[in-house]
């Protein structure tokens, strides 16, 4: 009751100086806007990336050679030759891994490709026909190579949209021969514009049978990845264990600490993406939070001016019976009302800008960027704004409450 009356008094006080009040909270508005914008965009980006991760398929498990990187020093150990044909053979045996429905080895690397006088450096993927299915791509022209061509080390290639454009321009690419490293390949398929995907950009890819890639392009006998697909999502955990056991047996490893391979699943990737975007968002939001502190200092400054200006009012209130605590509460509440209003305005502005940006990104990048209203950040923004008001309003409120009524009444 007492509090509600004080609230009314403070509100009237602010209303009397509307322009000043609005200018005072600008810092808070900007700070909260920035926080909401960053968190909202961060969540949007995360949703987008996670969406792409999901598009890889929840049933897919990637076997990666080397030890799982735990830090920068482990990075080089990822380039090892531990995955070989015998591993594929072992994994293919249903006794070893009964729930595996499909297996595909992949080799990849960057190589220059040329046609006539044009040269381009696509990412070469050596794979099997399953590639199209697992990564959900299809040629707009021509076809995918078949298993016979894989077995026969065929010199065929499917090129990405961008590669076709760079090498052939407006010319028809299908059926033409391009040169990759020292070998000539016949273009049997051209992919449509897929757009930038997070992990793989098929626009700049050239896909060949993995056998051909190993033999003629990279000159290696091992694989960079083995992609395994479980028959159902429920069997993914069991399959992970099967794959680990099979590969350990195949590599003669009895101590899991010494594994020369590790597995990546969609769940892992999602977790990693989540962690990275969260850390980034948090960092940026922390930077934005600094502006809240600056805004708070601004509020303290203006409140002090306001207290001096309203010395007479304070004196009058004291003369008619206001206690120090009444005056304190009045000015403290003014500060908190200001910052909370600023916070609300910031949330609305931040959400508005975030929404605009999501529209623009959706149009220009042709990505499915979803606007996410960050309820958590909004609640936090209001709370932080209120705390800023309390903290930075405390000193001016104290100054106001300590004014002697006669000093205050004499003040001209």
């Amino acid at each position, binding site marked *: 009751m007492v509090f509600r009356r004080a609230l009314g008094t403070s509100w009237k006080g602010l209303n009397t100086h509307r322009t000043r009040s609005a200018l005072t909270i600008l810092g808070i508005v900007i700070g909260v806007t920035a926080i909401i914008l960053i968190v909202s965009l961060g969540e949007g980006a995360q949703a987008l990336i996670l969406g792409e991760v999901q598009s890889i398929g929840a049933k897919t498990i990637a076997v990666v050679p080397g030890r799982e990187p735990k830090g920068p020093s482990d990075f080089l150990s990822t380039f090892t030759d531990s995955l070989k044909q015998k591993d594929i053979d072992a994994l293919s045996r249903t006794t070893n891994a009964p729930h595996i429905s499909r297996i595909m080895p992949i080799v990849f690397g960057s190589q220059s490709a040329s046609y006539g006088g044009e040269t381009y450096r696509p990412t070469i993927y050596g794979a099997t026909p399953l590639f199209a299915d697992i990564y959900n791509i299809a040629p707009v022209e021509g076809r995918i190579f078949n298993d016979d061509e894989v077995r026969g080390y065929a010199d065929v290639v499917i090129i990405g949209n961008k590669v076709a454009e760079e090498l052939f321009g407006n010319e028809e690419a299908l059926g033409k021969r391009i040169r990759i490293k020292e070998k000539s390949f016949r273009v049997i398929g051209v992919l449509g514009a897929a757009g930038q995907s997070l992990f793989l950009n098929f626009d700049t890819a050239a896909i060949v049978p993995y056998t051909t890639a190993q033999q003629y392009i990279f000159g290696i006998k091992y694989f960079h990845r083995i992609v395994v697909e479980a028959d159902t999502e429920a069997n993914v955990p069991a399959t992970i264990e099967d794959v680990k056991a099979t590969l350990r047996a195949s590599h003669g490893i009895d101590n899991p600490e010494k594994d020369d391979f590790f597995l990546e699943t969609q769940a892992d990737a999602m977790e990693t993406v989540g962690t990275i975007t969260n850390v980034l968002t948090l960092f940026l939001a922390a930077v934005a939070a600094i502006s809240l502190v600056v805004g708070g200092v601004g509020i303290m400054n203006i409140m002090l001016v306001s207290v001096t200006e309203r010395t007479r009012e304070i004196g*009058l209130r004291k003369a008619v019976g206001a206690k120090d605590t009444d005056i304190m509460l009045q000015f403290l509440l003014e500060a908190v009302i200001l910052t909370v209003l600023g916070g609300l305005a910031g949330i609305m502005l931040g959400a508005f800008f975030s929404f605009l940006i999501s529209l623009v990104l959706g149009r220009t990048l042709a990505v499915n960027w979803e606007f996410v209203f960050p309820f958590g950040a909004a609640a936090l923004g209001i709370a932080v704004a209120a705390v800023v008001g309390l903290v930075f309003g405390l000193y001016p409120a104290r100054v106001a409450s300590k004014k002697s009524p*006669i000093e205050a009444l004499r003040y001209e």
Partner: protein
Amino acid sequence: MVLIEARDLEKTYWDDGVVTPALRGVSFDIKKGEFVAIMGPSGSGKSTLLHLLGFLDRPTSGLYRFDGRAIDEHSDHDLAEVRNRKMGFVFQTFNLLPRATTLENVKLPLLYSGIPEKKWNHMAEEAIEAVGLTHRLHHESSQLSGGERQRVAIARALVLTPEIIFADEPTGNLDSKSGQAVMSILEKLNRTRGHTIVLITHETYTAEQAERILHLMDGELVKDEKVKARRTSDHFIK
């Protein structure tokens, strides 16, 4: 019955090492229901005295008892409560809240009174009626004339029916006609409702509307006289 008891009241201001004695030992009593004017030239200490009597400041030394209790017995918190419930103030410069209506201004002391909010409007309206401003209830103070503003201030002082009203040069910023209207309201409040009134003024004409005049000079009480021929101004009241 004695309402105010002052004995050897002294007040000295220290400002940057400069010692300024404003009151040098003043003693007097004021009884309940009296209408007393405090007169003196500027610098005589009359405002300082009013601040002490009105619990707005504490004396440097001496005894001040209001309504039976010495100021020393009160905490600042208690002083605020006494000011709220038993004292009303009228200032030369009105001191109304900006952008607030007559009603809002008069309700201000109620805000700090602990009286339930539902009674506020009724109490404020009664006080406003007593000063004859019912037709200005919802006007903002900037829309009122000087005389009307001072009457709002009187209504504000009245709203909690205090024992005493302190008026510090209430007519100082008014033309003579509005000033007379204000004085006759004070006089009527004293006569019909029994409010004790302590008025500060430097005009003999105004002071002579009181029953008694305390003359201050250089911080000392030089004369305490009964007004023989009290001026009245009833004809100014409708």
